[in-house]
C-alpha cells in the first residue's frame, strides 16, 4: 500500500530488547522495511537504552524510552501523545505480550488522537492467556496438553510428582523449561516465579512434531493472512531457531478455527504439537503478538507485518498471498556500533535518532590480499566468535576472501553471504587427522593463507596439526598445549599460580568432586558462592539448597567436578588481547559489559580505558607463554574496586567485531602476525557502544541441500 502524496507512513513499534530471546519489534520493523511499498518511518519504543534491536542499522528512524506498562494506561498514553505531538504517528504495533492489553484498552483513545491500531479485545487476550488456555481449549473443543497452574510454589512438588518427569514448567507470562526431576523443577519454578510472578504452569510433555503459525485477523475476525511453520531446530528454551514454512491443511484449518473461536483481531502466534503417529493437533500456546521469526513471512512472499499495517491504515483486506512452502530461516545475530552521544541522548532526554543508514560492510576489496578461513560460526547455543572475527575482517581492505568453517547444517553463519565467500562443513570428529584431511581438501579447492579456530573444544586439534598445516602453506597463531591447559579453569584457579597480579586477583577457589565437597567448600567460603563447571556454566548459589541444585545441574550437563568461588558483586569487564610468538601482547582492548543475556554473553558493551588492567593481563599471558588471541573476563568488586579474574577464553571473544569498528581490528592483526608481518594496530576510536541483536536469515532449499550433500556452500 502506498500513502497519499508519497508522504511517509509513520509507525511506532514496541519490543526491541530480549537479547538471545528476542522481542518481536525488531523483526516486525525489519519486515516493514523490507516489504512496505513506499516511504515509511519507524519509531522504536522501549524501556531503556539497552534495546539493542532498535540500534541496528536500518531499523528505527527514532528511538524513545517509554514508561513501564505497570505505571498505568494513562502514563503510557501521555508518553505516546508526547511522541505523537513531535511527529505525528499513523499507527502503533505493540509487540510485547504484557503491553497488548494496555494498548488494546487504549485503542479508542489512540484512534481519537489519530493513531490507529488493530488489536484483539481485552476479553480475548484474557481468555487465551496461558492461565486460561486450558479452559479455552476445553470450551472450544481443541486438544491441549494437560496443564495446571501452581500458584503457591510450596505445592509444586506434590503436583509435579503427580505429572511425572520430565515435564514443562512455564511462567504465567513467558518462559518455559523442561525439567527432569523435583530439584530442577523447584529451581526453575523459583526463577520463573521471581521473573513473572503469579506462580507457574506445569504442562505434560507430549512427544511429537512442533508447529507454529503467525496470523492476522481483520476487524471482521476473519483470517487475513496465515503462515504455518514447522520447527526444525529449537534452542534450550524450546524456541524455534530454524524452521520452514509448510502447507499443512490441518494446521491451517485449526488456526482459522482458533481465530474465529477467540474472536481475535490483529496479529497472533499459535503453537501446535502433533503427537508422533497421530493426526490429532494439540494447541500448546496462543501469543497475542507476532512471533520473533516473522521475517520468514516476508521471505515466503506473505509479509504479515505489511498486511497488518495496510489493514490498520485502510481496513479493506488485501488478498493475502499463499506463503511459499519450504522457505526456511535460521536465527543468527547482527552487530553494530552506536555513537555514545546518541546513547547518552536517549538516557537523558528519552528520545534520540536511530541508525537508519546501513553501515557499509568494509572497504572496497583489493584484488590481491589475505585469504582466511574462520571456524566457530554458529549461534545455536551461544554466539560463536567466528562470526565476530569475520565481521571484523570484512572491515579490512586487504582481506580478499573469508571462508566459514562449521560443523553442523544448523550453524547459522554458514548461510551468511555478507560474511563468507564460501562455507564448508568440518567433520564431527575428535580425530585431528580427519580435521587435517578436510582442511587440506578445502585448501585444494579454495586456497587460504591463515586459519583462525574460534571454538574452545577444537583448538587442541588445531594445535596438534599446526605444523602439518604450515607445510601446506596454512598459517595459524596458536599457543602450545601447555599454555592452553594452564588457562583451563581447573588449572587456572587451582594450579598454583600466584593470586595477586597487580591490577587483578585470581579468586580463592575450591575444586570439588561431590555434593558433599560443594557444600563443604561453600561453608568455608561463605555464601553467596558461584559453582562453575570446568569448561562452561556458572551458577550462583545463595544457600546450601541452591548449592546442591547447582551441583545437580552441572552433573546433568556432564560435569564430573566443579569449582566453587566466592560470588563477587560488581560490574563486568573483559580484556581482549593478541599475543605474538614471543608471548608479548600486540594489541589489547578493554570493554565494560553493559548488557548480558542469561547465559552470560555480552550483547552491549562500551570500550573503556584500563591500561593498568591490560598491562597486568598481558603480564599474566606472557607468564603462561600464551600465543594468539585470548580474552580475560573480570568482575570489578564493588566493595574494594579490584578486578577479579573469572575466566580466560583461549580464542577470540564473540564481541571482537567491536575492534574492527573501533580501529585496532584484532583478527586482522592476528592474520599479519601469523604470516610473520609487522603489526601496527590503529588506535581505537572512543565514544562507541557495541550492540548485538538477533537476526534471522533466509535459507534457500538449494543452499541447505548443498551443505547437506556436498558440505560446501558458495555465496555470490
Amino acid at each position, binding site marked *: 500500500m502506498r500513502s497519499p502524496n508519497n508522504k511517509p507512513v509513520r509507525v511506532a513499534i514496541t519490543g526491541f530488547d530480549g537479547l538471545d530471546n528476542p522481542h518481536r519489534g525488531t523483526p516486525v520493523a525489519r519486515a516493514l522495511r523490507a516489504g512496505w511499498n513506499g516511504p515509511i518511518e519507524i519509531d522504536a519504543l522501549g524501556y531503556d537504552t539497552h534495546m539493542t534491536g532498535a540500534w541496528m542499522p536500518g531499523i528505527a528512524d527514532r528511538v524513545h524510552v517509554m514508561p513501564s506498562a505497570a505505571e498505568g494506561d494513562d502514563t503510557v498514553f501521555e508518553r505516546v501523545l508526547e511522541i505523537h505531538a513531535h511527529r505525528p504517528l499513523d499507527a502503533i504495533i505493540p509487540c510485547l505480550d504484557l503491553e497488548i492489553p494496555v494498548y488494546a484498552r487504549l485503542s479508542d483513545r489512540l484512534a481519537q488522537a489519530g493513531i490507529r491500531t488493530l488489536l484483539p479485545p481485552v476479553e480475548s487476550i484474557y481468555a487465551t492467556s496461558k492461565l486460561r488456555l486450558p479452559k479455552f481449549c476445553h470450551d472450544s473443543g481443541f486438544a491441549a496438553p494437560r496443564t495446571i497452574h501452581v500458584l503457591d510454589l510450596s505445592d509444586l512438588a506434590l503436583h509435579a510428582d503427580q505429572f511425572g518427569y520430565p515435564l514443562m514448567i512455564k511462567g504465567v507470562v513467558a518462559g518455559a523449561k523442561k525439567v527432569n526431576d523435583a530439584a530442577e523443577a523447584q529451581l526453575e519454578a523459583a526463577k520463573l516465579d521471581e521473573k513473572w510472578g503469579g506462580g507457574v504452569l506445569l504442562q505434560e510433555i507430549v512427544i511429537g512434531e512442533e508447529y507454529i503459525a503467525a496470523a492476522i485477523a481483520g476487524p471482521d475476525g476473519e483470517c487475513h493472512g496465515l503462515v504455518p511453520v514447522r520447527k526444525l531446530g529449537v534452542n534450550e528454551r524450546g524456541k524455534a531457531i530454524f524452521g*520452514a514454512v509448510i*502447507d499443512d491443511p490441518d494446521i491451517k484449518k485449526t488456526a482459522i478455527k482458533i481465530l474465529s473461536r477467540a474472536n481475535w483481531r490483529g496479529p497472533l502466534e499459535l503453537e501446535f504439537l502433533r503427537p508422533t503417529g497421530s493426526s490429532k493437533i494439540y494447541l500448546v500456546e496462543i501469543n497475542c503478538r507476532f512471533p520473533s521469526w516473522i521475517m520468514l513471512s516476508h521471505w515466503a512472499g506473505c509479509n504479515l507485518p505489511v498486511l497488518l499495517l495496510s489493514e490498520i491504515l485502510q481496513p479493506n483486506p488485501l488478498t493475502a498471498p499463499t506463503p511459499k512452502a519450504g522457505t*526456511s530461516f535460521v536465527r543468527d545475530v547482527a552487530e553494530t556500533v552506536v555513537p555514545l552521544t546518541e546513547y547518552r541522548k536517549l538516557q537523558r532526554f528519552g528520545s534520540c535518532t536511530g541508525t537508519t543508514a546501513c553501515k557499509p560492510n568494509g572497504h572496497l576489496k583489493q584484488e590481491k590480499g589475505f585469504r582466511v578461513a574462520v571456524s566457530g560460526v554458529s549461534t545455536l547455543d551461544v554466539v560463536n566468535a567466528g562470526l565476530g572475527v569475520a565481521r571484523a575482517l570484512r572491515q579490512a581492505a586487504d582481506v580478499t576472501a573469508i571462508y566459514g568453517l562449521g560443523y553442523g547444517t544448523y550453524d547459522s553463519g554458514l548461510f551468511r553471504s555478507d560474511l563468507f565467500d564460501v562455507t564448508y562443513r568440518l567433520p564431527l570428529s575428535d580425530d585431528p587427522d580427519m580435521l587435517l584431511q578436510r582442511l587440506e581438501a578445502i585448501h585444494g579447492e579454495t586456497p587460504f593463507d591463515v586459519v583462525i579456530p574460534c571454538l574452545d573444544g577444537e583448538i587442541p586439534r588445531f594445535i596438534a596439526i599446526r605444523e602439518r598445516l604450515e607445510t601446506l602453506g596454512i598459517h595459524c597463531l596458536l599457543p602450545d598445549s601447555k599454555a592452553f591447559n594452564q588457562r583451563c579453569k581447573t588449572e587456572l584457579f587451582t594450579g598454583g599460580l600466584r593470586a595477586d597480579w597487580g591490577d587483578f586477583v585470581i579468586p580463592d577457589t575450591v575444586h570439588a568432586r561431590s555434593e558433599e565437597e560443594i557444600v563443604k567448600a561453600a561453608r568455608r567460603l561463605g555464601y553467596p558462592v558461584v559453582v562453575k563447571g570446568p569448561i562452561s556454566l556458572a551458577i550462583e548459589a545463595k544457600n546450601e539448597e541452591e548449592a546442591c541444585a547447582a551441583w545437580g545441574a552441572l552433573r546433568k550437563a556432564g560435569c564430573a567436578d566443579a569449582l566453587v568461588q566466592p560470588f563477587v558483586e560488581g560490574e563486568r569487564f573483559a580484556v581482549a588481547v593478541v599475543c605474538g610468538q614471543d608471548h608479548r601482547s600486540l594489541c589489547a582492548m578493554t570493554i565494560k559489559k553493559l548488557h548480558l543475556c542469561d547465559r552470560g554473553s555480552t550483547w552491549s558493551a562500551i570500550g573503556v580505558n584500563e591500561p593498568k588492567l591490560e598491562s597486568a593481563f598481558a603480564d599474566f599471558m606472557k607468564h603462561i607463554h600464551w600465543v594468539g588471541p585470548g580474552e580475560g573476563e573480570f568482575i570489578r568488586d564493588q566493595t574494594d574496586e579490584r578486578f577479579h579474574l573469572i575466566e580466560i577464553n583461549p580464542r577470540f571473544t564473540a564481541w571482537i567485531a567491536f575492534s574492527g569498528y573501533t580501529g585496532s581490528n584484532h583478527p586482522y592483526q592476528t592474520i599479519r602476525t601469523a604470516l610473520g608481518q609487522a603489526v601496527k594496530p590503529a588506535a581505537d576510536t572512543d565514544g562507541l557502544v557495541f550492540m548485538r541483536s538477533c537476526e534471522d536469515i533466509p535459507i534457500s532449499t538449494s543452499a541447505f541441500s548443498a551443505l547437506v550433500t556436498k558440505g560446501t556452500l558458495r555465496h555470490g
Partner: protein
Amino acid sequence: MSQRQYALKPRVALEGNAGEECVLVDTHSATLCACNGSAWIILNALKDGATTEKMVALIASAFAVDEDEARRDALDFIYRLTAMGLIDEKS
C-alpha cells in the same frame, strides 16, 4: 508389463534445475530431499504422470544402463516415494 501410472501428489514441489542443486520439497512437512540426476529425471516425469516403462526408458537413455538395471532403479524409487506418501498410483 505394468501399465500403472504414477504421479506426484500436489503437495510435492520440485526446486532447482538439472546440473545444479535439485531438491524435492514435501510442502506439508517441509521435508527436503536432495536429488541426484536420475531421481530428478524421474521426478520431472512424474509431475505430469508416468508409467514404469516410461521411467525405465528415461533412465536407460540418460545414463546408458541396461533395461534391467534401469527397471530396478525405477521400481526402487517408486517404492521409496510411495513409502513417503508422495505419489498417487492409478491403474
